[in-house]
């Protein structure tokens, strides 16, 4: 029998749970009967093999009852009493709201605490194709090494996740000094200490969307003095419903979440000088298949269109030297089209400063970044065509080092935005 932990009307978990479990594995997001069965069977096997002396409980966010997902889930587990259905917050008659990610994760944390779980793994069931021991790898640093937060390390098709590689990872690494490769990954594991810390926060940051919530969680782990780790878990295969929007909207959401945290954590990141590696469980590999290709000409044309028309907006944000470099870049041919790492790092930093100093409406500032990102993407595609996984990762590493080297520029302009304008 499936126990429903909360209904859509009341999302509070009970203070005491009928069963106790040392480990909890939560599957967030909508899934299908075909996916959930193998996923649960694999998770149960991994827990039994990896942690034989601990019992586990499976938390599943509310599913579409008509398609038989819950029935498939019940059939998959050996003890259905350990399968708990959580009511996902709704904004419509059936489908859970993607903007309710924050509420869902909070509910998962509270439920895991109610079951007495010391370690919790949260998996995006609809987006991630887990490796056979992905859940074990996620949970092991928490159970055996005392880690508080374990981030995912995905295998991704070439060029996929370009926003993460070009902005989120280098920016967060330079600011907070930890080399967490996929900071905005939706899958993670955490200790009960971290779960309780997050549950105790009065407000969860951002707009409650998937990306804002995931970034909020990682920022709490980075700035809260928690022990961090990361684990190779499998292939991140899809885009979440709230990330399926137009590119400028996705960028605005990501940059907005990053820059709000930048404002919030000024005393922390201004003291950080270098970055340290985060322990990694497993060996990173690239995806076996290539993802969708990027049309270089279309991407460069979008950048040039932005350069032709958005100059009045960019002039308010970027210093003249950066604008001059961008104009020179727009005139180059494909084989010479390279956006220097230092220029890219300064562009991202300049937008963070403009966001902080409110030189213009944030609803205008963040979408105006999209053509610049497409310029970087075109440059990256032109440079990395034919590169293998190792070379691509080395290139990302070089970019991160440049972000770290340019951090004094961010600090100086943050402190004196008007006076420091090279």
């Amino acid at each position, binding site marked *: 029998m499936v126990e429903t932990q909360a209904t859509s009307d009341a999302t509070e978990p009970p203070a005491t749970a009928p069963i106790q479990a040392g480990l909890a594995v939560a599957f967030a997001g909508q899934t299908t009967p075909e996916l959930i069965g193998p996923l649960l069977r694999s998770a149960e096997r991994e827990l039994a093999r990896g942690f034989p002396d601990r019992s586990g409980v499976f938390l599943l966010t509310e599913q579409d009852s008509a398609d038989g997902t819950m029935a498939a889930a019940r059939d998959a587990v050996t003890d259905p009493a350990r399968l708990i259905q959580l009511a996902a917050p709704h904004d419509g008659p059936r489908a859970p709201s993607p903007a309710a990610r924050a509420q869902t994760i909070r509910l998962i944390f509270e439920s895991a605490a109610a079951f007495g779980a010391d370690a919790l793994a949260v998996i995006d069931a609809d987006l991630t194709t887990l490796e056979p021991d992905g859940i074990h790898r996620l949970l092991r640093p928490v159970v055996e090494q005392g880690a508080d937060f374990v981030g995912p390390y995905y295998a*991704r*098709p070439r060029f*996929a*996740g370009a926003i993460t590689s070009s902005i989120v990872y280098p920016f967060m690494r330079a600011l907070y000094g930890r080399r967490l490769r996929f900071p905005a990954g939706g899958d993670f594991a955490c200790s009960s200490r971290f779960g309780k810390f997050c549950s105790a926060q009065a407000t969860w940051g951002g707009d409650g969307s998937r990306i804002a919530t995931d970034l909020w969680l990682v920022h709490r782990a980075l700035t809260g003095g928690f022990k961090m780790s990361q684990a190779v878990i499998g292939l991140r295969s899809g*885009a979440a419903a709230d990330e399926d929007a137009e590119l*400028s909207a996705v960028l605005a959401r990501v940059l907005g979440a990053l820059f709000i945290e930048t404002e919030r954590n000024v005393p922390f990141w201004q003291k950080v000088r270098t970055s340290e590696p985060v322990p990694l469980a497993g060996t990173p590999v690239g995806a076996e298949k290539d993802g969708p290709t990027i049309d270089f000409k279309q991407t460069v044309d979008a950048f040039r*269109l932005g350069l032709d*028309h*958005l100059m009045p907006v960019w002039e308010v944000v970027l210093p003249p030297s950066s604008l001059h470099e961008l104009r020179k870049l727009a005139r180059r041919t494909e084989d010479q089209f390279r956006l220097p790492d230092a220029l890219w790092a300064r562009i991202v930093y300049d937008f963070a400063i403009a966001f902080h100093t409110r030189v213009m409406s944030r609803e205008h500032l963040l979408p105006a970044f999209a053509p610049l990102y497409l310029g970087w993407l075109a440059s990256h595609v032109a440079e990395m065509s034919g590169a293998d996984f190792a070379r691509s990762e080395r290139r990302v590493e070089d970019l991160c080092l440049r972000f770290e080297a340019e951090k004094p520029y961010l600090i100086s302009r943050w402190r004196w935005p008007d006076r420091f304008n090279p």
Partner: protein
Amino acid sequence: MWDQVTLALKDSLSRVLSSLASFVPAVVAMLLAVLIAVIVGAVIQWILCRILYGLRFDERLNDWGLSAIAEWSPGRSPTRLVGRVVIWGSIMIGVLVGVAALETTLMTAMLSRLIAYLPNVFIAFLLVVFGSVLARFLARGVLIGAVNLKLQSPHLLSLGVKWLVLVLSVAMALEHLSIGGEILKLAFGILFGGIVLAMALAVGLGSKDVVSRSWERQADRQAEPADAPFQHL
């Protein structure tokens, strides 16, 4: 008889001289009032401009997104605009005081009409300022949105939105000032209707083939299996 003529002339001269004698002080008073107003206005202007320059008023207005005001200011400086408003306001008050010294009944009537009209001027001014800020905000939003949608004439769209809002706010301001009356409404209706009609014709006739090709492509895309989109995140 000659005595009577002389007496009449003396009376007349005396009346004219006495009128002149009573008018000249009023004229002198008016000139003095204007002169004092100019001096006081200049002093206030100087002090105010010093304070505003000290507060970096021009840069702050720009930061608050009110740079449209700078476009209309002398020397692109809103501080100088404030200074001009102060000195001309002071001169106007001086002239009014001076005119009051000449003719009190005329002045009372003028003042009461002016005071009754001032709220309209203030609201019209607010309408134009608000319209200008809104026009600029919307124009920039449309420009950024059009560039991100990869439309080929984003500037034209942005300019269209900006002038539409500006014309609308100026028309509302003039209506509030009771200037133009029905002619203004009619002209505005014709202008607005004309713009919309011209745009509809331009799109309908000029982009007929583009629209039909776009629909065909859309239909083809629906028939074919969709490619997976590139994962930016």
